[in-house]
């Protein structure tokens, strides 16, 4: 090798090394912040489920300035979910939130491979040393929203657009129906299934089917405001879900249960940073602030608001539980005898409808 060639090689190596050092420096600077990851099933623009999580994430970022948060949206509950969580862990996330039920097994797989990373799975039931689950007692505000719907209906038919016949949704329908019944024993809740969490067109069609069947209030367990818009188009009322949705249908939305994930995210990320994070099943309610009721629409009269507020105070004080007996199922069988209350285990595996619900459940 001639000396000029040697020099050339030397310079090349030097430049390459300098590049490496600079790259290292950059990645070091980026790693100074505490990284936290999220995977979302939908888009924050869905104005519902994912938006609520995204607002929680932003709230957390504001409260904890030492955090850098990363999210990936529109991750299906398939093999892709496992890869995206692995990618987040490889990017240095110390704690990862997986915000859809179907991620459950994939969370477990990734958690096994990254024992030093904490995982939080929303709405599931599998925990591990480094996997916790979290959810909220949204059935409490659902019950309250049922009071509003039951007071406002004139046709005594309330449509309920539901995603899937799984315990979470069934529990919500039942809580809502019991709220309806508490003020209006004649009203029926008609359930229409969509078999999708997120599909504005299908959600709207399902709401229209309920409206065609005579419903004058539409409630929903869906991720977008489409059912509310269907109600608004017919001049009927709606009870929204996830986030306040009145801006999409101001003349329709009475109120609706909403999520407030921010404080939970703050406390868990703080715990992860402090090393005080422990696994567990978190299921907070109204008193914890993780669930609440959206602001009332202008059409809701004062006396109805008062009814709701009274019940809310009772729930907050622990004096009232929406699933306290006696409760009959829609075939007339007493499922919860007077004097007893359903246990959390029963609530988590709900597979029957209360008295005033019309709908089908797979058996």
């Amino acid at each position: 090798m001639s000396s000029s060639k040697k020099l050339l090689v030397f310079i090349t190596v030097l430049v390459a090394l300098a590049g490496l050092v600079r790259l290292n420096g950059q990645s070091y600077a980026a790693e100074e912040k505490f990284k936290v990851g999220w995977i979302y099933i939908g888009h924050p623009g869905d104005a519902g489920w994912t938006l609520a999580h995204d607002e929680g994430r932003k709230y957390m970022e504001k409260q904890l300035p030492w955090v850098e948060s990363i999210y990936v949206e529109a991750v299906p509950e398939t093999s892709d979910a496992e890869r995206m969580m692995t990618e987040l862990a490889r990017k240095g996330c110390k704690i990862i939130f997986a915000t859809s039920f179907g991620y459950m097994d994939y969370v477990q797989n990734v958690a096994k491979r990254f024992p030093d990373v904490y995982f939080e799975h929303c709405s599931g039931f599998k925990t591990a040393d480094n996997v916790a689950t979290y959810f909220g007692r949204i059935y409490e505000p659902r019950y309250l929203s049922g009071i509003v719907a039951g007071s406002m209906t004139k046709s005594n038919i309330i449509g309920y657009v539901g995603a899937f016949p799984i315990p979470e949704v069934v529990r919500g329908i039942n809580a809502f129906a019991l709220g309806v019944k508490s003020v209006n024993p004649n009203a029926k809740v008609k359930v229409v299934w969509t078999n999708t969490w997120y599909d504005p067109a299908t959600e709207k069609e399902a709401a229209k089917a309920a409206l065609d069947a005579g419903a004058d209030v539409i409630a929903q367990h869906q991720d977008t405001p489409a059912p509310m818009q269907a109600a608004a188009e017919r001049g009927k009322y709606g009870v929204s879900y996830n986030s306040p949705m009145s801006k999409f249908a101001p003349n329709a939305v009475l109120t609706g249960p909403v999520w407030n994930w921010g404080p939970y995210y703050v406390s868990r990320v703080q715990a992860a940073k402090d090393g005080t994070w422990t696994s567990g099943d978190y299921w907070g309610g109204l008193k914890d602030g993780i669930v609440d009721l959206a602001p009332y629409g202008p059409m809701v009269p004062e006396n109805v608001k008062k009814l709701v507020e009274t019940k809310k105070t009772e729930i907050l004080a622990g004096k009232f539980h929406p699933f306290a007996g006696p409760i009959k199922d829609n075939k007339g069988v007493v499922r919860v005898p007077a004097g007893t209350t359903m246990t959390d285990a029963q609530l988590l595996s709900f597979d029957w409808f209360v008295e005033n619900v019309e709908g089908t459940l797979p058996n």
Partner: protein
Amino acid sequence: MGKGLIRLKLVFEKRDPVPVSYRVASPVLAVLLALVLGAIFLAASGFSPLGVYLEMYRGAFGDWYGVSETLVTAIPLALCGMGIALAGRMLLWNVGAEGQFHMGAWAAAWVALSMPDAPAWKVLPLMVLAGVAAGAAWALLAAVPRAYVGVSEIITTLMLNYVAINWIEYLVHGPWRDPASLNFPLSAPFSDAARLPMFGYTRIHWGLVFAIIAAIVIDLTLGRTKWGYEVKIIGESPRAARYAGMSIERNIIITMAVTGALAGLAGMAEVSAIAGRMTRQLSPGYGYSAIIVAWLAKLNPYGVLLVSALFGGLLVGGYSAQFLGVSAASVNMLQGLMLFCVLATEALGRYRLRIVPAAGSDGDSDADRQGARADG
């Protein structure tokens, strides 16, 4: 129009033969074109195009993990695409790989759930057989009416997708629902013996071997057997095939059964290796993406392997682009742009667009178009 104006019209002329330079250049040009168009879009949205492309590349091919995940995504695409390509040789349009995939997964899951204590050497081969048989049977539901009554397989295979997916929905919400899973729509998990092994620390599983074997077998069969010869002849000229005494009906049945079997095998591999239980979301649309894979691969089995890996990389890399803040919708757009450009330049490689005075009668241009369609 006034008398003084010369009327012009656009005419597609077939390039015959397609010059080799075009065949090589067109996909390269297409990708470049897509990258440039995508870059304009990204820059307008405030992203560094180069940064986004590098991140996509890093996610898909940048390290061993990315490559392994790209291959994991490529496996179902390759198996489904292989079958679609084979049917395509006979001008059969199987758009039902998604349904055949789900039926294959279903049958394999049924075996796994019925024999929870069986050892791997017993349960895995049975799962493969069940998956292959169910996929083939599902395709035959469309093949038989196509062969004997001439019912369009495009419609029937598509419709059967919905039936298959709803069948899975029914099972996981109903009879197969695992009581131990709190009434969530999941089957019971499979035993460890019923999980198709993965290689090393990756998620690459035996499905990759199946896909490679399938490519070799299909290539040899098409090139060296009487049946392969018949498939090609029927695809090129059904009338000639019939004069030669070939049974078109029988070949439709066999080809569709094989295409369904491959998609069923893909479903078996996915549910066994990746999911480990029956769930309601097994596929983000592999059976549909595989149609594009088959066509981009020009219906060549080895081409399907290669294109699946690239397509898998496009899907995997797309998620990585989100780490730079590019939204999922923008990523979908970039991916769509890429495919659109590849398909469009592919067509322009085969046809020449010419502007000619509209002197000839309409009959001529119709004939041109007819010719183009039959050849395409």
